């Protein structure tokens, strides 16, 4: 497992060929969440906070929240 990107609210982790975004969602209660993402999205999420937001939203909309 390798942390390929990190800021103060999000980490992008590479586990084998799998990319995982672990982030603080800001839920009212308990807010650490993880989503598995494509490599391209993992790369996009590192570009800016807005890009990270868009990537996470994309997966949240895919999986209903």
């Amino acid at each position, binding site marked *: 497992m390798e942390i390929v990107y990190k800021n103060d*609210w999000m980490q992008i982790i590479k586990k084998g060929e799998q990319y995982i975004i672990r982030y603080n969602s*800001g839920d*009212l209660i308990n807010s650490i969440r993880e989503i598995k993402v494509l490599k391209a999205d993992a790369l996009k999420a590192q570009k800016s906070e807005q890009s990270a937001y868009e990537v996470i939203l994309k997966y949240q909309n895919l999986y209903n929240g």
Partner: protein
Amino acid sequence: MKTLIKNSLQGRLHAILETILCWCHCCYRDDAEAQAFKQYYFWQPFQAFAGGYISGGIMGGTAAGIGGLRSQYNTDNLNNTDNLNNTNNLYNLNRQLADTAMQTAQTAPLPLAAGSESVNLYSGNSSNANNGVVLPWAGNITAPMVNSVNSGNASGNGGVVFPWAGNTAPLVNSVNSGVVAPKLEGDNTITLPRGTEGNYLPTARGRYLTIAKMGNRDLMVMPNGDLILMPETTKAITTIPVTSNALTVIPKTTKAITTLPTYEQTLQQANQATPYKEVRGEVENNNITEGVGDSLNRAGMPKTKVDEILKTPKGSRPDPTSYLSAEYTQNHISKFNDGVTKIVAQAPTGTAGPPSGTFVMPSSIADDLIAQAGGNVSKLEQLLGLPKGSLGTRPVRIDIANPTGLRLPNGNELGANSQWIPGGYTSGGLLEAIIDSPRIGQYIVTPIE
């Protein structure tokens, strides 16, 4: 004359039972074990699980108990004794001994049939009996699981729920007072345990006066005249949360319910949950969205508008100023003026939330919930409407005394999950707002003791 005959019969039965129990006694390793059998499985089987809870352990103990009854105590003697199979006589004997055995029988295993066996259950109290009992069971049987269930007196309330997912014989042969045995497929009905003050809904919503059916769904009539239509679902229930201000859903299921709150737990939690706030809802994807038809939710929004917003993908949902009045918004936000709080399983290591903002509740509400929990994490989870274990073992509160960017959530936040509804309240009725995610130094983390 009738009384004389009954007393005589009781005396004979008592003697027979004592003889059998004396024989049983010899099979046991010691006196205590024999006494336990006598009290738990014979004289006071129903009292044995009054106020108890359901778990695999209890089910296992139950099966073992029945197995023991069959193999160790020569049930042929019991089954071939007409008098012993006479429910009324055994019931009367049970009543005589109920009060003395009640205390020691409180935590005993359930005398629940594991297969084709049958048992008799009695509350056995000479005064009002309020036994909150749930017997979850899922299997196919060829004989009734329970022979008969009696509250023990004419005015007693043997509050019993028998969720069942079997396919063959009826669960209970005869039912007397305060007992319901629903089959969890087809037309599924669950009647909730009843107390001396009326019927209780296992939520913070208080008591219902009566319950009826609307199609396959339960319709509850509340004291204030409100009607609550309970939703359906095809998913099994593993737990029914009892949370403050939340509508508990008792859905239709084709699988066995394995856990339900006992009557005592239900009553305790319902009484503790104040203030009572009304939630009306309809079920979509097993979630309740506020508002029924064109009625309004807490924020004064019609359900059609709520649904329209929820159907909009995250990222494109409208700003609350487009559907909520300035007065409502101002009033809502003013409730957060004395500081805001988050409750989480672990302390943040950096900014306490993403750039899109973080959800908070008024600190006064967090104070109240934490005080109610009294250091019990499970209870805190229950009050917050969270699944058991979700706060871990050492939750913390994050207090932000001077939040910036205090605003109503718009549903585009990363923390707006599938339960989110517009208007500034959680689906469980807690006040919520969004603030700019506080950086280190802008918040204080305190372990919840």
